[in-house]
């Protein structure tokens, strides 16, 4: 597989990889609890990006070459006649679920942080470890 095919035809994949690794590094390496949850958010959205880019079909440039290009998955008969095709709605449904789950996790983490800060007066992991003994 040559470089052009590896990087250009699959740039969506590389963008997901970069974002996911940034997020994961943030969640693991940072000592501040808020930063951890920010890293986690980036990590999760990166996975959603992968799902959505799996669903997408066609490129807009290619329409000029007579190839098909994607349209939103809402019934549109005229568009189909003009050579559009619907993108895949399945990952959309999965990602909708994922986004809500991510928001719920975030809310719970925030509540925990507020309680921790009230209890210990700090959000730094190593200080917390000292205070907990």
């Amino acid at each position: 597989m040559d470089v052009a095919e590896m990087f250009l035809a699959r740039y969506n994949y590389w963008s997901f990889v970069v974002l996911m690794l940034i997020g994961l590094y943030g969640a693991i390496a940072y000592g501040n609890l808020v930063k951890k949850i920010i890293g986690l958010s980036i990590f999760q959205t990166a996975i959603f990006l992968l799902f959505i880019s799996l669903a997408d079909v066609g490129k807009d440039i290619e329409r000029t070459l007579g190839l098909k290009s994607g349209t939103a998955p809402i019934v549109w008969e005229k568009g189909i006649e003009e050579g559009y095709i619907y993108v895949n709605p399945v990952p959309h449904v999965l990602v909708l679920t994922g986004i809500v789950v991510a928001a719920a996790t975030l809310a719970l983490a925030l509540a925990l942080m507020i309680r921790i800060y009230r209890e210990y007066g700090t959000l730094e992991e190593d200080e917390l470890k000292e205070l907990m003994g």
Partner: protein
Amino acid sequence: MSDVNVVIKTTVRTMLPFIQLYGFYVMTGTEGAGGGFQGGVILAASFILYGITFGAEKGRQAAPESWNTAFKSFGLWIYAGVGMLTILYSLGRAEFLNYSATFLSLFVPHTVARGILIADVIEIGIGMTVAASFISLFFDLVWRSDEDGRS
């Protein structure tokens, strides 16, 4: 709050009904994008906006917690209830959440009944729960919880 905020207050008061109407518009219907989650969040946003402008205290009065709790439960009762209803109504012939097997199918073709149930019952149920949940999430995280150390 001082009188400086009178512009903000008036603007918000005028905007609120429109935001809420938009929330309901997004929530129902199957033609366009949107659904219970988005509509519910927009609806919750209107209350949060109210809370930010007029203070959390007044926001709490506009969306009392007893109502929030009730709506949270009712929304899911509607959703899961429709699921159980389909089993009971069809006497075990149809599956959980098989919307064709409800009373509505007596009046309209069952495919149309499915559409109606999705758009106007299920999505409203989701919207109710989501809106109430986000309102109570926001007020729980903000409201007065720092006044005394007690948790």
